C-alpha cells in the first residue's frame, strides 16, 4: 500500500514504486532507524537510493543503527519558508553524524542525516542548547496513524569533542 500522510499541512506521498524511501518509513513506523548497507563492500549510506556510491553494487539490505550520533553542523530557521512551519520557528535543523561509520571510507566521510533537534515534547530544542559536537539520539515523532518521523533529541551523554555554538559577531 502506498503511504500518504499529512504533516504540518504538507501532503507527503510515498508510492509503492519509491521502494527505498517507503521501506525507510515502514521501519520508522516500528520505531527503528535504518540505513542501507551495501552487500558488496558493507558500507552504510544515506539517503536511501538504489546503488552504492563507493563500489556501485546494486545489492543492499537494511541495517538498524543505534540512533546515536553527534551534531556535525546545524542552523536555526527563524523565517519559515513552508507555511506549516510558521508556528514552529525558531527551530534547529541539524546534520547528525551517526556513530556507526565515522571517518569511513575516508577521514572526512560519515553517515550524516538531516533532522530537527527536538525536546522531550517534540518541540524545537532551544538554540542555546544546540551546537556542533553535541551528542544526540533518535526519537520517533508520531505524525499520523501508523506513521513516525525520525527526529533527534539531545543525549545525556557528555560530548567527546569540542562543542561550538554560533555567535553573531
Amino acid at each position, binding site marked *: 500500500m502506498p503511504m500518504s500522510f499529512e504533516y504540518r499541512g504538507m501532503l507527503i506521498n510515498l508510492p509503492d514504486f519509491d521502494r527505498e524511501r517507503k521501506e525507510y518509513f515502514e521501519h520508522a513506523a516500528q520505531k527503528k532507524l535504518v540505513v542501507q548497507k551495501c552487500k558488496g563492500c558493507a558500507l552504510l549510506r544515506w539517503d536511501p537510493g538504489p546503488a552504492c556510491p563507493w563500489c556501485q553494487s546494486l545489492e543492499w539490505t537494511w541495517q538498524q543503527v543505534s540512533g546515536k550520533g553527534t551534531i556535525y553542523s546545524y542552523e536555526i530557521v*527563524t*523565517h519559515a519558508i*513552508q507555511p506549516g512551519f510558521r508556528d514552529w520557528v525558531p527551530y534547529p*535543523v541539524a546534520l547528525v553524524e551517526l556513530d556507526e561509520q565515522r571517518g569511513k571510507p575516508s577521514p572526512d566521510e560519515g553517515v550524516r542525516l538531516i533532522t530537527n533537534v527536538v525536546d522531550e515534547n517534540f518541540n524545537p530544542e532551544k538554540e542555546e542548547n544546540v551546537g556542533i559536537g553535541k551528542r544526540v539520539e533518535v526519537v520517533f515523532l508520531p505524525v499520523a496513524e501508523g506513521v513516525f518521523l525520525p527526529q533527534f533529541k539531545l543525549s545525556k551523554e557528555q560530548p567527546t569533542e569540542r562543542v561550538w555554538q554560533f555567535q553573531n559577531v
Partner: protein
Amino acid sequence: MGRLTDRYCIVGVGETEYSQASGRTTRAMAVEAVKRAMDDAGLNASDVDGMMSYHGGDSTTSTTVVSDLGIRLNFYMDCSGGGSSTEALIGLAIGAIEVGMCHTVAIFRSMNGYTQVRIGGTGARARAPITEAGVMTRPYGYMSAAQNFAFSFMRHMYEFGTKPSQVAMVKVVGSKHASNNPKAFMKKRMTVEDVLNSRWIVKPVHLLDCCLETDNATCVIVTSAERARSLKQRPVHILGVAGRVCKPRIEVHYQFGPITRVAGYHAKDIVFPMAGVTHEDIDVTSCYDAFTWTTLLQLEDYGWCKKGEGGDYVSSGIIALGGKRPNNTSGSHLCEAYTHGMNMVIENVRQLRGTVDDYCPNWQKGQHTYDYSEGHCRQVKDAEIAMSMGWGTPALGSALIMRR
C-alpha cells in the same frame, strides 16, 4: 595562452530593467533581453542561428523567443538549471559552433524571480505535495537555498573561526559597487552593522547576507572570433570555461567532506590550464553571491587565498573597486539583481570593453574618472582579463575566463 585563445568571443550583452514588479511575462522580458544583446552586437535576426536558455521554475522557450523575433534557428537547447548555467552554456555554445551546427548563439535567462516564482522558495513551491528526495528533508523544514547551504558556512566558522562580521564585508563591498551602477536594484551603501543587525532568515544567515529576488531577463551572444571582428563592439575573447563541475555525491554532498569545500576546488583545475593564465594575470572577478559566504567559500577554493582565510581576504580591500582585484563590480546578486549568474558575465564583458555603464558622463566613449566614491565610476582601469565563478550549490560550480 591556452587552446581557446582568439577563437570565440562574446559580442553582445543585454538585459531588461532589474525590478520587483516587471508586470510582464517571462516571454516578453526574454525577447527584450535578446533584442538588446543583438542591438549591442550589431546583429540582425538573420545573423543569429543558435539559441540556448536555462530555467528553474519560470522561463520561456528558445522556440518562443525566435518566433517572436523572426529568427530561423540551426540549433537550440533549453535546459534546467540555475546558478552556474551561464558559463556552462557558453562552453556548450562554443562546442556547437566548433562542430558546425551553427555560428552565432544567443544565451538567455528570463525569470520573474520576485512576482512569479520567488527565488527564496516562498509561495507555490513551498505548498506543493512532498515526494521523492524531498521526503527525506522537507518534513524537517529544510527546503530553501539558504536552508540547504547554511551547514557549509556554519562548519566553516567552526573549523576556521570565520566571523559573520568578516563575511558581511562581501555585502558592504557589493553595495559600494552598486552605488555606482544606475541599473542596480539596491544602490544604498551598507555597513557591517547593517548586515549584522538585519533580521534573521536562518542563522547564520541574515537578510542582508542573502541575494535579491528580482524580475529580469539577461542575454549574452557567442560567436567566432572571425565573425566578431566585423561586429559593433570590441570583441571579448573567451580563454577558458568550466561547466557544471561537481563535488562527489552532489545531491548529498554533505556526506563527503570537507563540507566547507565547494565545487570551485575542482573547477579551477579545468579553467586555469585551459585559459593558460594564472591568478596574478586576472584583473577583475565576479564570484557568485547567492549569499555573502558563497562568494567567500568560492574565493578560497579557487585559490585566491588559503582555505580558511577567506574572512580576512574579503575584508582586506582587495576585492573592492580601487583594490588589487575588484570582485562583483556591478553589485551582482546581492545588490544589482538576481539573474542566476548572467549579470556577473555581462558586467565582466563591459569591464573588458572599457565601457561600464556607470555615472561618468562619457562612459559610452570609454571615458572614466576612476573616482570610486558614491555616485561615480565603477570601471576597473585597464582591465584586460576577467574571471567569473558561478555557483549552483556548494557541490556545483562553473567558471569562465575572458580577455579583451
